[in-house]
Structure formats: C-alpha cells, structure tokens
C-alpha cells in the first residue's frame, strides 16, 4: 500500500492503512487515553476540551472543504444556528437539550440546502466570499432582531445546563470528535466519498461519469452544516452563555476553523483534528499568558501561521507526517541492502 502526496494543494489519496475502521478505533483509543491523562489538571482540561471541540468542528468543515473542495468561510452561521437553537429554547421555553440540538441541526441542514443552489454556481473564491457574506449577514440579523436578544446575547439559566463538570465535558467533546471523524470515515469509504473527491478534483470528469456535482456538493454541505451545528450547540451549553459576536464571528470561527483543517492537513481524516489540537489550545494558552500586555498576540500569531501554512506547509501536519514516514521507510529499506 502506497501513500502518495500531491504537488498541488489538493490532498492525499484515499489509499492509507489508517483509512480503515481498525486504524480509526485504535487512534481514537490512544487519543482518549492521552486526553484523559493531560486533563488531570483543570486548566489543561479546559484546553483539551476546546481542542477536542474545535477538532470536531474542523473535521466537520473538512467534509465540505477538504474532501469536496468547497471552501466555506461562513461556517460560523451553523455554529450560531446550533447555539441559538439550544440557547433560545432552553431559556425561553425550557426545552430539553436534545430537542434543541435536533432543531438546530434541522435548521442548519435547511439553510445549507437553501443557499446551495445560488452559491455553488460560483467559482472557488466567489463561493468563499458568498459564504462569508452570508455569515456576516447572519451576525447582523442576530444583533438586530429582538427575539435573538440582540447584542446582549443569551445567558442560559444555570440550572438548565446539563452539566458544568469539566471532566464530563471532556467525555462529551471526545464523543463529538469521534462522532464527526466516524462520520467522515464512513462517508469517505463509501460512494459519496469517491464522488466528493471526483467533484473536487474535476467537475467535468465527474459529470461525465454520471455524477451531478451540484447534488454532491449540496449533500456534503448539508452534512457538514449538521455536524457543525451540533458542535455549536455543545459549545453554548459548555460556556453557558451566547455572545453573538463570538459565536458568529468570521475571524474567530468562520476563518479559524478552515485554518485548523489546513494546518492539520486538508482532506485527510486525522489532519483537521490534529491542527485543532495544536492551534486551539495553543491560541488559548497564548491569550492567557499575554492577556493585557500584548493584546492581539494570539490572533496575530494565528495570522502568521496562516500565511506560512499557505505558502510552505499546505499539506499540513498530516502531510508532513506522511513525508516523514516515506523518508523513514526509504532509510529502512536502504539500510537492509
């Protein structure tokens, strides 16, 4: 079995021993153990929680962005929909957690399908701009309407939160990440995965094989939106309050999540979450260390990393790992002569 690396920014082939359920389960078990060990300390626990959550969000984005090749910079919308669905229903109506989450998912899917047709007709950059615009509009609408509580945001009553125990959230976010990755793996091994990659690489050729690119992109979009919405719901339950400027922010979320996928490795299974695991806690850590003295260092660093990644590191961690693996294999083989 060979592992290949692309010269373009397009991603690695499907052929990888880790693309099997066995490899996946094994990897997740290791991760789970490591995460639990690190989280003995409360502060690190919160960092790991954030890393796992954003890992799941990055994996969800990667379904549309990495595998299907459509770069959305507006995924904050779905984070927001998931968050608002839960926050509003819990605060105003005292709904249960699950119904609120499901509501968010359904709305997100509907929205994704609705904006698919106008947006997917556009070439790459313009699709990105369109999603960005959509996200910003969502933010301004959220700030404008009274039923969304405008700029004040929403404070979920303490007794309606499912839990405030960081260790339990560790479990929840880990489950979320595993779920998203499992969904990714399931997709990529099946017909839909192959179709998405075809559409990503060459729409005309895909169409000649009987694939309808718009249908595939829309499905990928809907799945990605649903998983992102779930993450948004969990996020707001974790934080206990919803600040629209945080949840619907392009710079904090909409542009940040794709960055995580890029750093980790676009279009790979483990890549996006690796990127998240590195950057999200890293970013939080920087902010914590330098708060006040060097405002903007964490985001500024993110910016520099983004530029460097785009220029020199577009295969991300996973790509680097694979190259290292190939190099090591060559050494071993050469050494046996």
């Amino acid at each position, binding site marked *: 079995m060979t592992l290949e690396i692309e010269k373009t920014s397009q991603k690695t082939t499907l052929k990888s021993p880790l693309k099997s359920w066995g490899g996946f389960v094994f990897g997740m078990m290791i991760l789970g153990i490591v995460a639990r060990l690190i989280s003995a300390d409360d502060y690190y626990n919160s960092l790991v929680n954030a890393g796992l959550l954003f890992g799941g969000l990055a994996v969800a984005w990667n379904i549309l962005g990495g595998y299907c090749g459509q770069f959305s910079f507006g995924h904050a919308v779905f984070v927001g929909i998931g968050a608002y669905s839960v926050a509003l229903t819990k605060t105003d109506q005292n709904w249960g957690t699950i119904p609120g989450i499901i509501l968010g998912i359904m709305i997100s899917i509907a929205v994704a399908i609705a904006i698919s047709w106008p947006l997917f007709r556009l070439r790459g950059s313009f699709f990105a701009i369109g999603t960005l615009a959509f996200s910003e509009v969502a933010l301004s609408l959220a700030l404008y309407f009274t039923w969304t509580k405008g700029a004040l945001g929403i404070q979920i009553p303490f007794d309606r939160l499912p839990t405030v125990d960081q260790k339990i959230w560790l479990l929840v976010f880990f489950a979320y990440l595993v779920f998203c990755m499992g969904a990714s793996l399931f997709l990529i091994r099946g*017909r839909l995965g*192959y179709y998405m*990659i075809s559409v990503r690489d060459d729409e005309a*050729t895909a169409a000649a*094989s*009987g694939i*309808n690119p718009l249908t595939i992109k829309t499905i990928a979009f809907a799945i990605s939106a649903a998983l992102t919405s779930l993450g948004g719901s969990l996020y707001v339950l974790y934080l206990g309050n919803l600040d629209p400027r945080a949840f619907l922010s392009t710079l904090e979320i909409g542009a940040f999540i794709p960055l995580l996928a890029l750093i980790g490795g676009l279009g790979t299974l483990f890549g996006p979450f690796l990127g998240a695991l590195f950057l999200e806690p890293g970013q939080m850590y920087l902010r914590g260390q330098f708060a006040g003295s060097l405002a903007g260092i964490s985001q500024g660093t993110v910016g520099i990393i983004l530029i460097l990644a785009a220029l020199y590191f577009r295969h991300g961690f996973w790509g680097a790992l694979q190259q290292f693996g190939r190099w090591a294999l060559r050494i071993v083989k050469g050494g046996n002569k």
Partner: protein
Amino acid sequence: MSTTPLLEVSNVTKQFGGLAAVGGVSLKVRKGEIMGIIGPNGAGKTTLFNLISGHLDVTAGNVSVNGEDVTNVGPARRASSGLGRTFQIVRPIPSLTVLENVMVGAFASHRDRRRAEKHAWETLERVELTHRALVSAKSLTLADRKRLEVARAVAGKTELLMLDEVMAGLNPTEADRAIEMIKRLRNEGLSVLFIEHNLKVVRALADHVLVIDYGLPIAEGTPTEVLANQKVIEAYLGAKKAEK
C-alpha cells in the same frame, strides 16, 4: 425494441451568434455498432460530440438515448442514461488510484463499495490495466490514461461509448492495442461512437462512417465507400490547398 437505435441524433444545429458550427446533422447508432465521425480540422466534430454528450446545448434538433429524449438534459443525466464519454485531454481524478478512478464509474451501477470495487477490478481486466490498479492515476502514461478513461466509462451504465480522438498521441503499437481493446469491448456488447483523424484506425474499427465539413454532413457509409467519395477527398485536400 431491439430496433430502437441506441443513439438517435435528429437534425441538431448549434449556432454561435451568426455562425452555424453544426448545421443540421442527423445520425443513428445501433446497439453493437461502431460508428466513426471524421472530417477536416474545425469541421465541427467536437462541437457535435459536445452536443450529443450534453456539454453544449443545441440551438435546434433532438438527441435521444434508448428512445428517451435527452435534448434538454445535462451531461450527468445523459451519462446515467447510457452515454459515456472520454475527452481529448485525458483527465483522470488525480487524487485517486487507478482502481478508485474506475470505482467512481462503477458506483453508477453498484451502490455498495465492495461490489463496486469488484466490478472495477473486472473492468480493469477487460482493458488490461490490472497491473497498475493500485497506483496513483496521475502517474500513468498517456496510453494507460486513455485506457483508464475507457474503463471508468465502461464500468458504469455506459452502453454507448463516445471516444474523442482516443488515438491522438499514441504510437502505432499503442494504437493497435487500443483498437484491439475497443473491438473486444464491442464484442462484449458495447457500442461506440468515435471521432478520429487517423484514417487507418477508421478503416480498422468503424462499421459506419459519417463525414462532416463546415458543420454539415457531406457523406455517409462504410469506411471504404466514404474514403473513396470524391466530395470527402476534396474536403480534405481542399483544406490542404488553402493552407498554402
């Protein structure tokens, strides 16, 4: 039912502004038939191909596959109705292996992954590409890429394979092997419509030939008949005179 032609093109026209790139062409391809379209450069052959495969909309006329009118339907739907097509510039899916490329085609007729994979292997055997199955499609030679294109089309629901200058860029040995492959596929039930410049290939493969010049049909018949036709000879040589 067996008398319904697999492909029926009725009087299709394509206008670009005032220019008629294709002006009223009709043709029929029956099941198990190999039909060739030839003509001088710029005659409108590829345009005609695009009209048939759905990559271009007709200005007038109809296209039917298996009796079903597909004139207003896009290329993806025509592909699922039985029209498979290769392109002059061969484009495999670069991120996938050869086998996976064929699977993309196989998924059209086999939803389950394992069955699609099995069918893809069988298709690779039919086109003699099994030795490269697990290699990245990017690394194939030109001849093998063309084979892959055919395999991907054939693995799906393709009943009529449209080959756009598939021999271009192949050396004589490769061309001979390609001819063998196409004949073999036809014997297994595939029908073929192809564009070719290489007249030797046309003679070897085609049951029936249509000649196009300036977007209009100028002759039709067996390869021997057509290549002896005075009008056809003039169309080719006349073009040569104009080059001087």
